[in-house]
Structures are given as structure tokens and as C-alpha cells.
């Protein structure tokens, strides 16, 4: 059943902004991988990213057609399934650089933890929009959503993948905050976390993670060790100056001074070659995207849809904030990619699904519902 209103309420502005961001992403990945592309014109990560993009677009289109209301009933099952996958990863995951994040099925590698970022949104949105949970829920009503969040966060931390854990935590917190949380609960939550701070610092964090946090405070302590990444990133961004060094002319990028340049530090590649003007444009595009999605949340038909959009929007928002914050040296270096810009299949597909869900809610925002 294709309603005319479905198409009328499709928010094209989101799609245009999204395409602009994706284009910037492709340009940056092309530049970051230029050496590889020259060496292997037919088999490189840039082409693979294009494939991922096609898959992502397909996922986005598919996600438009199912009324999001139907997800309410299946989301607990999906949540459980992805949680199970995270357990499988712990046992059978592929180890890269000392952490198990990847599952390999039929030659394709993917990160279940990426999918958890959207699944948790559906799960929490479903919980908070059920009839017996009011706005500003009581403490008792918060126990379950906290458990929904803590379970995947712990599993992801064990991989270890601090970045994804922080993402999931940030998404959940935003949803709970949006539903409404009383100040005293917030205070209780913060206080109850405090005793964990020291043991987490002492035991849960790897030495390199601790160093990265310390380095943020004093980046010049160890310019060749833990501070190296952030220092090189700042040099790359700063050396772009107002107008940038020009496409494919970034020396920090080309001469491999930038670490993880096609994933975590893709923003630095862009900022080096396009300068302040380019980076400001990218940041404003992100703001515009978030603004547009928040607008969808505000106009959505019901609380469920609204919370889905808020969750998906928070996913994009926090990843962008943390990633850019870390490459410009304001936040510690944790492995979080820049949405739609960084290279990465699982992430891109999940993000496309998120946009699909937002459009899904937007399309069905008319206040009438079939009985």
C-alpha cells in the first residue's frame, strides 16, 4: 500500500544534505587512499566504499517501506539476536590489533557492535513509548532501559572497543534524557557512577587508553608516543589554513604522517586539503542534518516515532561530535568514526538504515492512523 502522503512527507532536504556529506566523504577517502588507488586501480578500499554505499542506499530504501510501527513487536527479538552476536564475537570473532570486533560470514566482515547502535534505539524507543511508561518515568521504570544499555556496553567494552561503548552509552542517555529524567535521578546516577571511576581507570582501561586521556591534557608530554596521532592530526588541520592545500595536495596525508587517515582521522584529511572553509562547511552540513532530523522528531506522529528519530539523530550527532572533537584535539582519542565520511561498511550501512528510519517516521507523520 503506497499512500500519496507517504511521498509528500518524505523529507528531501535530509537526503540532499546527506548526499553533500557523503560526497565530501568520498573525496576525502579518495585523497586518503590515493597512493593505494594509484597502485591498485581495480581493487582498492575506495571502490569497496562505493559498493558499501550502494548496499547502504539499498538498505535505506528498503527500510522506508516497512511501517516503523511494525518494528515495535520485533525489535526485542532483534535486540536479543544482536546481543547474541556480540557474545559470538567474543568467542569466534576475528582478532585485529588485539581486539575482537569482527565477524566473518561468507567472506564479508562486519561488526555486530555497529548494528547494536540502531538496535538499542529501537529497543529503548519501544520501551519508553509503551502505555505504562510516562514522561519523566520513575526510578523503577528506568531499571530496565539501563539494563538494556549496560549489557551491550559491557560486551563491547570486553572486545575491547571503547569508542562503540561510548557511542551506545551516549545514544541511550540521549533517549532517556529526551523522555525526561528528573534531576535527582541524574544526580543519583552520576554519584553511583563515581565509585566505579577509580576501578575503571585502574583496571578496565588499557594503558594506551589511559595515556591518550592524559595526553589530551598535556599533548606535548610525549609527542612521539601517545601524543603522536593527535599532534600530527593538529598539524594536518592547522596547516590547511584558510583555504587548504588543495585536493590531493595534503602532505600530512600523502606522506603518511596522519594515522588511520581513511577511518578515524578522515576529518583531518579534509581539513588539510580544504582549509577552514572546507571544514566549516562540513561541520555546518552536519549541524543542518541534525537540525533537520530533530525537526522530524518534533513533528512525528507519536512518541515511538519521535524517540526513534531522536535515537538515530543522537547516533549521528554524538559520533560526529566525538570524532571531530578528538581530531581537533579537544577530546581523547577513542576509535569513533565520522558518520558518512569515514571508510567502513558496517558503519555506513547502519547509518543509512538510521536515515531510512528517520525518513520512515517523517513519511508517516500524518496524525491519522488506520485502525
Amino acid at each position, binding site marked *: 500500500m503506497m499512500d500519496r502522503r507517504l511521498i509528500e512527507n518524505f523529507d528531501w532536504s535530509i537526503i540532499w544534505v546527506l548526499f553533500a556529506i557523503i560526497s565530501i566523504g568520498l573525496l576525502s577517502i579518495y585523497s586518503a587512499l590515493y597512493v593505494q588507488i594509484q597502485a591498485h586501480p581495480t581493487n582498492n578500499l575506495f571502490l569497496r566504499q562505493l559498493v558499501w554505499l550502494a548496499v547502504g542506499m539499498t538498505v535505506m530504501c528498503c527500510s522506508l517501506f516497512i511501517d516503523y510501527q511494525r518494528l515495535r513487536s520485533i525489535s526485542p527479538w532483534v535486540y536479543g539476536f544482536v546481543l547474541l552476536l556480540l557474545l559470538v564475537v567474543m568467542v569466534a570473532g576475528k582478532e585485529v590489533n588485539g581486539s575482537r570486533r569482527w565477524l566473518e560470514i561468507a567472506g564479508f566482515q562486519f561488526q555486530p557492535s555497529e548494528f547494536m547502535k540502531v538496535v538499542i534505539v529501537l529497543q529503548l524507543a519501544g520501551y519508553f513509548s509503551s502505555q505504562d511508561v510516562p*514522561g*519523566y518515568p520513575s526510578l523503577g521504570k528506568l531499571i530496565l532501559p539501563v539494563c538494556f544499555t549496560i549489557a551491550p556496553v559491557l560486551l563491547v567494552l570486553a572486545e575491547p572497543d571503547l569508542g562503540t561503548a561510548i557511542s551506545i552509552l551516549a545514544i541511550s542517555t*540521549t533517549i532517556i*534524557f*529526551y523522555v*525526561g529524567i528528573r534531576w535527582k535521578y541524574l544526580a543519583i546516577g552520576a554519584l553511583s557512577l563515581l565509585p566505579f571511576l577509580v576501578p575503571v581507570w585502574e583496571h578496565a582501561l588499557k594503558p594506551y587508553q589511559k595515556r591518550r586521556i592524559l595526553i589530551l591534557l598535556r599533548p606535548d608530554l610525549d*609527542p*612521539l*608516543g601517545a601524543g*603522536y596521532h593527535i599532534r*600530527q592530526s*593538529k*598539524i*594536518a*588541520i*592547522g*596547516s*590547511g*589554513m*584558510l583555504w587548504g592545500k588543495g585536493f590531493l595536495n595534503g*602532505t*600530512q596525508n600523502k*606522506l*603518511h*604522517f596522519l594515522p588511520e587517515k581513511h577511518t578515524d582521522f578522515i576529518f583531518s584529511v579534509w*581539513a*588539510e586539503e580544504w*582549509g*577552514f572553509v572546507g*571544514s*566549516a562547511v562540513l*561541520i*555546518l552540513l552536519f*549541524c543542518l542534518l*541534525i*537540525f533537520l532530523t*530533530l525537526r522530524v*522528531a*518534533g513533528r512525528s*506522529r*507519536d*512518541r515511538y516515532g*519521535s524517540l526513534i528519530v*531522536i535515537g538515530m539523530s543522537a547516533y549521528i*550527532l554524538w559520533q560526529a*561530535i566525538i570524532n*571531530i*572533537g578528538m581530531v*581537533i*584535539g*579537544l577530546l581523547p582519542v577513542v576509535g569513533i568514526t565520522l558518520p558518512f565520511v569515514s571508510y567502513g561498511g558496517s558503519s555506513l550501512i547502519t547509518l543509512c538504515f538510521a536515515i531510512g528510519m528517520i525518513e520512515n517516521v517523517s513519511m508517516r507523520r500524518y*496524525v*491519522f*492512523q*488506520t*485502525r
Partner: protein
Amino acid sequence: MKNKKPVGLKIINWESTETVSFQRQHIALYGILLIFLTIYLLRLWHLQVLEGSSYRFQSENNRIRIEEISSPRGIIFDRAGVPIVENRPAYHLVIIREDIRDLDGTIRELARLCERNPDDFFATVEANRTTPKFMPLRLASDLDRDCLARIEAQRIRLPGVVIQLEPKREYKWNGTAAHLVGYLSEITEADFKSEKYQGYYPGEDIGKVGVESAFEQYLHGKRGGRQVEVDAVGRRIRLLDEVLPISGRNLWLTLDMDLQRTAESLLEGKTGAIVAVDPRDGSVLAFACSPTFDQEKFIRGLKKDEWNALTKDPSRPLLNRGSGAAYPPGSTYKAFVAIGALKEGAITPTSTFNCPGYLQYGDRKYRCWRDAGHGGVDVERAIIQSCDVFFYNTGLKLGVDKLAQYANMFGLGERTGIGLYGEHPGLIPTSWWKKQATGVPWQRGETISISIGQGFDLVTPLQMAMGYAAVANNGKLWYPYVVKRIEGSTSDEIAEIKPRLKRKIPLEQRYFDLVKKGLTGVVESPGGTAHAIRDPAYQTAGKTGTAQVVGVAQGANRKLLEKLTKAKDKDHAWFVGYAPAGDPEICVAAILEHGGHGASAAAPLVQKVIQAHLKGKTDK
């Protein structure tokens, strides 16, 4: 909406309180967005616009490395083109800390490969903590072959580790002509600041003493440099700019390496010097000092205790005995006394003095070396037999200031001008000098001592060689010179150094002829003091000298005394000679500290040098 409910559809209303509360959250989210937008844009403005040029500079620093291209120092050849001092490649272990991720691990690995103590390396790194991280830092100098091979094999795994090639001095005959050639040592802080060493880099070697120092400006080339673009692990991507080094100029010495080696072998185990010059132009043919020192040691870097050992060694190996040390000339001085006395009319060619074996002056007896005396001798015989009493009388007639005037005329008492560091001017006393130096007026008795080259008289072997050369060539006093050609990299950059006449000594030929006849007689006539060294192949002229180190008591038995004297109190043995006597080609001065008699100790050495020179020439 209240009364007209469409069939089949249900209105879903937000609870009124909920809408309001959600709006608050909405605004809060916009607020968060705005806050981050502002902070990030300000941060980017700060990084890219305010600090942009500084970061641009750092990114250039990141990618651009300045590499030095060291310039080889000029080679030093002997007069025939035999290299005396060459260059060899030395390999230094250098790290660029900026390119090293794991400094500790890298240093430990390098120490293991070099079989050195890692603490030394850590100390070097610690000492250079404040120098920029992109500057190359030398951990070890002059690696040996095995160590070099081990490091090269591991280089791929060790980013930021560089092997730096630098030409180093190589001494083909270590210690040969060391005092003349000199040595190198690393430029000191004080030198580095001085005008002379402008444009030098820290860590460069500069010449110390000898030709290495005197011709520093020619020998030292100019370092070149290279600007290369490197990637994050220090691999060279491309060459951006290059300034080629200018290599130092080569020097051709006047030295004859064969003669030098002969002279040095003659001095082996002895303390003294042999200086051979060409009386026709003043060029130095041999310049041997003994004991000598190890020049290589300076290249490797002298440790403090090694330096102390070298400077405190009682045999003073660093002393340049050829031109940097002065000795009483003894009887070798007599030739100049004779020529002055003839010119001044104090004596005539035929005037004689009677030598009873001593000269009574006041209440003191001045002895002749021959206790039995020489009887009546004229100037020629006095030279041949080295009669002291003849010259006591002559000296007394001339007086101290006239003696000094003629000695000065032949270059004694002044620096020869060879241009080497630390030349000793010697000392030829005058009455004025004595008054100035000691406050006591000149005593006539002292004139007696100085007329036979004792007392205050001090000369260097080089001065003696040059002075006798001036006698041999009938009055041409040359500046001695050791470098005859300065050779650049192209043929039009060759400068030949011309002999320079210091002065023409204004004396009549007949005086020269007479004195030279005497000097020839010293070797050639049967009564001559050095007749034993005669070589029938050519005529040799010369003069023996035995310079007292310790004053001999009045009336002491000399023969007995000689036997009792300890080695360190023995007389200095001199001989200065030239050959062939008629047309001199070489003039040699030799001194042996505490060598005993000039005739028996020094004269044979001189003759061997002369033989080597004249024979060597006919062989060639």
C-alpha cells in the same frame, strides 16, 4: 475535531504536559548542537587561521629533512705526489628522534647491534633533550665494519636510524711528519664562536698545529646540503634542493717522503730533530722530530686521560723539536762568528790565535774542548778543528752586540717565518737585552760563552738549517716553506707557491768562500772534527756542535766526567751540514738531545740524510 470523528481513523494526541516537556528537551538538544558548533568552529579558526602558519611550518618541517653532505678535507701530498694524509670514509650512527616511535626499544636494539652499553646512548639522548627532535643526533662515531653490517641488515625495522657517512683523516704512515702536518680535533666551543671558523658546524674537525692548522682555510671545504621530502617513516620521497659540497684543496708539500722516512728512522729511539732544507730555494725537504705521536688517536677522539698522558709524558712527544724548541747552538754557531769577525776586521783570513787549551780571562780559565790545545790556528783551522780559544778571542774582539748583529743577519734570534703554529724565535743576546731581561749589565766574560754558542744563545734546528743554507748559497736567506702547491678541484685552481727571499745578506763573497772552505774542511780534511762521516762520492761541508747542558766545574777531568754523567745531563749533539760543498743542494741540521758529541752522534745522521737525498736523486 471533537464531534466529527472520521470513521476508521483514530486521533492520537500528545498529552499536553508531554508536548511541553518534549519541547524543552528539543530546545536543549538544539542548545547542545549550538554549543558544540560554536566551540568547534572557534577551535578550527584558532588552529587553521590564527595558528595556521605555525602548523604549516610544522608540516613542512615534518616532510622536509635537511641532510648534510660533508666535504672531504684536502689531501696532503709530498713533493712527488705521494699522499701523506688521505681521507677514508667513517660511518656514524645517527638517529632522528622524530621518526622513531619507540625510542627506548630502538636504542636498546642499536646498543645490542653495536655491542655497546645502552646507558651511553641514553646519556647522549638525555644530554640532547632540548635540541629539536628532527635534528640528527649522533650516537656513535666511526662504527666498525661488523657493527655497520649488522645495523644495515636491520635498518628496515628501525625507522629514524641513519648511517651517516663522513670522510675522516687517514694517516698512511701514522706519526710521520706529525709535527709538520699537525693533527685534527673537533672544533671547540670557543673556536666555534671565533671569526676564523665562521660557517663551520659543530662537530666538525679543525686543524690543530702544523700544516693542517696553518692551511685550514684551504684544506677545509664547504659542507653541502640536501633538502629531501620524506614520509612518516623517514623514507625519501624526492629531492627538493641540493647544494653540492666544495671539497677542500689539496696541498703538495715540499717534503720528500723518502727522505722524511729516512730521517725519522735515524731518529728512532732518540730524542731530537732533523731538518733538511734546499739551500737553493728554502723549501723544507725533511722535518723529523722524535719522539712523535699518534695522529690517528686525535681522529678517534682523545679521551681525557689519553690527552693527559700525552701532555705529561716527560719525553714531550707533542713538542715540535724542529722549530718549536730552542737549544744552545754550541760550536755550530762559530761559522756566523767567523763571518762577522772577518767582515768587521776583528780578524783577517791569516790572523792567528794561540790555543794552549784554555783562555785565562780574569780569574777564570775558559777551556778549549781539547785539553792539549790547538796551538796557533787561523780562522780556517779554527773552524775545521772547532777551536774554542780562537773564537773566545774573536768574540771578545767583536763584542756581544756585533756577534748578535751577524747572528741576526743569518736569521738567528727571529722566527724563520715557516708559518707553523708555535715557532720558537730562539734567543741571541745583546747587552741591551740582558739589561732589560735581568737588570744586570752585560759581563764581558759572558761574551766568551756566547762566542762558542753557549750561555744565553738559543736556536732552533730550523733556524740553523736556514742560516747554514744562507752560508752555503752565499748569502741568500730564504723563508722556509713547506707547501709548494695548493690544488683545487679544477686545473685553473692550482696555485704554485714561489720561494720567498727573506733577505740578501750584504757580505762579500770572499768571506763566504773562506768560511765555506773551513766548513768543508770539517768533513773533508783529515784533521776535521767530522772527518769520519766523509763520503768520497761528493764533498760535504758542515759543523759539529756539542752544547753543554750542565756547566762543567773548573779544572774537572772531562773524560771522567763524561763517564759519570747521567744520560739526562749529557750534552746536546749538533751537526749542521750541506752538500755537495761546491754546489749545495741540501742543507741539514740535526740535534740529539743529550746525544753526547756532535761529531759522533749527530754528524753521521746528517750524512745519511744527505746520502739518501743525493743518491735518491740519482736513482730517480
